[in-house]
């Protein structure tokens, strides 16, 4: 059934990557190249750029990434169960109910601590 999957993916990926790579090279070769100091400076709405862009940014982004990591791993645990949910029946449902309750405790804790608040 799926014995050709990996060959096919390899063929398809070769086409896609080849197309993307060739187009970028082609556009770099064909396009004009008239460089000037102003053209190569970062765009900041027309005024002189102020300082470097390698600056600190809100820690909120980091907290969201942390939350994502935790809950995404928990979601991944639910996938194998979802496939066999019908076969496991009531037993599987109670097991997963306990798991979801544990996840919910962590979720409510993060909520109360303000991990999902912006500002």
């Amino acid at each position, binding site marked *: *059934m*799926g014995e*050709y*999957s*990996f*060959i*096919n*993916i390899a*063929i*398809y*990926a070769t*086409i*896609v*990557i080849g*197309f*993307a790579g060739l*187009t*970028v090279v*082609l*556009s*770099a070769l*064909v*396009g004009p*190249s*008239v460089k000037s100091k102003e*053209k*190569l*400076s*970062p*765009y*900041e*709405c027309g005024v002189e750029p102020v300082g470097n*862009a390698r*600056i600190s*940014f809100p820690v*909120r*982004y980091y907290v*969201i*990434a942390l*939350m*994502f990591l935790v*809950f*995404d791993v928990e*979601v*991944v645990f*639910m*996938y194998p169960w*979802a*496939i066999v*949910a*019908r076969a496991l*029946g009531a037993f599987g*449902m109670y097991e*997963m109910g306990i798991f*979801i309750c544990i996840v*919910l405790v962590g979720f409510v804790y993060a*909520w109360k601590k303000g991990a*999902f608040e*912006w*500002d």
Partner: protein
Amino acid sequence: MVDHVTVLIYALMCVVVFAVLLTTVAFLTLAERRISAFMQDRLGPNRVGPWGLLQPVADGIKFIMKEDIVPREANRLLYIVAPLMTIVPALLTFAVVPFGHDLFLPGRVINFQIANFNVGILYIFAIAAMGIFGIIIGGWASNNKYSLLGGLRSASQFISYEIAMSLAVIGVLMVYGSLRLNNIAQYQGSLWFGFLPKWGILVQPLGFIIFIVSVYAETNRVPFDLPEAEAELVGGYHTEYSSMKFAFFFMGEYANMITASALLATLYFGGWQVPYLHNIGFIFPGMGMLAMPQWLVAIIEVLSFAVKVGFFLFLFLWVRWTLPRFRFDQLTDLGWKVLIPLALLNVVITAVLIVLRVL
């Protein structure tokens, strides 16, 4: 044992799928501009070819001919790699989407799908998630404050809605019991109460709503297009990009929209299924049947899939001119405080209904 003719047939299919995908992306840009124009009571691009149909070709040539600028303080390698890291995963995800019944040729069975993976839907999530690297690397490598913020916003938005989306799909997987998209589409042809096709929208209405909202956020479309909010970020992560590299970010977004529409159709609207159409023709419950040759059935199925995908693509454009943009705190609130609890509830309800043998 690998059969060379089969490999050749699949290679041909790869080329056709790739060509159709790129053509759809090209004409989707035109459709977006034309439909937006009609919704705002103006004409849109209509000069290049009849009804402006050659506009995508003109745009493509223009993109290639433009100057390729790498800003002075940018990280050169990452700056060049980033657009490739966006377009390649966006085009690769389509590989597992089925667009028809298996075709029975003498001596071999051909799937109407590039790769019939046993992990189908996980492949889509895994590859699609790689696209976010391109956006965040592009934003950082440009060494522009607006691009950096755009890339960060994009990443945090993507991961906020990823969980709700994966949880919504769990409901579908429980009902159909398979990760293979082809099987999921096939099982939706079975009948409920003897006459109702068992489409995902009927068995998972709540899951569908969660999934479609998450998908709009994942593809950075209005009302969740904050990463590229023109008014506040002058374009977002692709501010510094020009020429074909800019086009790749743009095409990546449209390719993602196509895959998202194909997923919506496959998971919730029967994929290539037409109600009562089987491998041998239409079988109406209690009303006899209408026999059809295999090639005719295949054509009808591919057309049905195309119509469903086309409808969802139109819905993307329609929503764009209907809803205003979210604020960033509203966006995280909706993702974490509304959609994830709702999606968990959906999983629990589905589990109970399956144990009670309703679904």
